[in-house]
């Protein structure tokens, strides 16, 4: 194909240029970083992933999920529950998304009654938010349910509890490629120590969207066993499933939604 690349020298030159440019980019931003982000101080407020997918058995229903509390080692999720000081929210724009002109007009909120796994979780909404923006109060209460037990509240199903982290990524290698993104490298992240993800074999073909780009070796890629850093870890999952109609614009049918998740605290700090 037209994009076939087998020139190892050219690739090496490109990767070197990429490395230098990446480091220069970071250096240009300065290295006088502040302390770690707020959520480092409270991993229970740290959202790791957001998901939105249909019920696999019922296309009229949709599930939203957010994971928090990263890197719970296998077998150690007992005793870990939501932070009662945190408001966990799904924010949804049910109209204007296709045109790019929107704000949130529906929110789904969760709070926990107390610390520990005996906590009760309160669901608020889905409902029109009291406030649009980053300072929020709770909307009308929909119901309460127990931590780590799936529950039904009318046509809504909810769950909050420990689950295996569904995310997968060779995160360690990513941090070698872009050290700035690794928290422990701050305030003075080093230059990149890799210009490639890991490929198991030099003979591994690289085919992108049907176009061949040679092999791992011919491109000068790192030859080593890839590793999913997240494989041995759990998270806390917040999952809600409901009829799509609950996320329809006022007076309309379900359409394109824009979804994001937030955590918030009364003082805007970690605790």
């Amino acid at each position, binding site marked *: 194909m037209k994009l076939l*690349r087998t020139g190892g020298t050219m690739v090496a030159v*490109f990767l070197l240029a990429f490395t230098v440019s990446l480091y220069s980019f970071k250096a240009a931003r300065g290295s006088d970083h502040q302390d*770690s*982000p*707020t959520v*480092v101080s409270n991993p229970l407020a*740290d*959202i*790791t*992933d*957001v*998901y939105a997918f*249909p*019920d*696999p058995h019922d*296309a009229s229903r949709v599930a939203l999920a*957010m994971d928090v509390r990263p*890197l719970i080692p296998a077998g*150690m999720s007992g*005793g870990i*529950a939501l932070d*009662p*000081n945190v*408001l966990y929210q799904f924010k949804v724009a049910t109209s204007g998304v296709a045109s790019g002109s929107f704000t949130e007009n529906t929110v789904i909120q969760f709070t926990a*009654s107390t*610390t520990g796994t005996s906590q009760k979780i309160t669901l608020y909404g889905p409902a029109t938010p009291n406030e649009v923006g980053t*300072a929020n109060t709770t909307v009308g209460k929909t119901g309460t349910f127990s931590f780590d037990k799936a529950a039904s509240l009318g046509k809504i*199903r909810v*769950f909050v509890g420990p689950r*295996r982290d569904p*995310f*997968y990524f060779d*995160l360690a290698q990513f*941090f070698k490629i872009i050290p700035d*993104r*690794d*928290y*422990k490298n*701050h305030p003075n992240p080093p230059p990149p120590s890799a210009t*490639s*993800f*890991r*490929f*198991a074999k030099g003979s591994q073909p*690289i085919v992108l*969207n049907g176009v061949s780009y040679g092999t791992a070796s011919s*491109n000068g890629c790192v030859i080593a066993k*890839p590793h*999913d850093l997240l*494989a*041995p870890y759990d998270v806390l*999952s917040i*999952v809600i499933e409901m009829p*799509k109609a609950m996320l329809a614009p006022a007076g309309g049918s379900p359409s*394109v939604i824009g979804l*994001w998740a937030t955590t*918030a*605290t009364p*003082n*805007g700090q970690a605790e």
Partner: protein
Amino acid sequence: MKSRFTLALIAAAVAGIVIGGCNSSTTALTPIAGPSSPPSGTVYKQIELLSRPAVKEAFEAFEDHNKTNRSEPYADPVIKKQIKSFSLLFRSEKWADTLQAILYPNVMKADLSQNTTTAAYLGYETGGATGSKFGGRGLDDDVIDISLGAIFGNTLSALGLIPDDKKEAPCLATDNVSYDKSNTETFPYVQAPL
């Protein structure tokens, strides 16, 4: 990223586990919040934001994450510019502009009018090219390879959105990690803890 997740936070936690060992990890898992939830009417102030995986983590400098975390995704003061400036390090201006147009505002889009039981990350934005016009994000979607393919691979040109700029970086276009977890067909769908 942490894609998804907050990459830096994972790194911080990993560092703590590695340095502290198992006992320290156990201590670190103890909730640190107060004993009960605030009263009704409390105003909560946003400290964290996440939508699409790998956007904040790939494009935005670590020092600016806190700004994005405290913003609405349609009024983010930094990430729109950084999507383009980061992309320009290794792609053409047209490629960078296209990435910026697709990824900002940074919200996960799902077309609920689709009569399907399948999600596919960036499926709405790509007309179903990633597997389903529903879009959203399924639990097993390879969001990293989809993202890396758009940033470092040929995804945008393969979709016919723009011509190939011939600046692909094949060694960066996949992380070579496959999904090997066991989610379920029943609510809450996510695999039970380890």
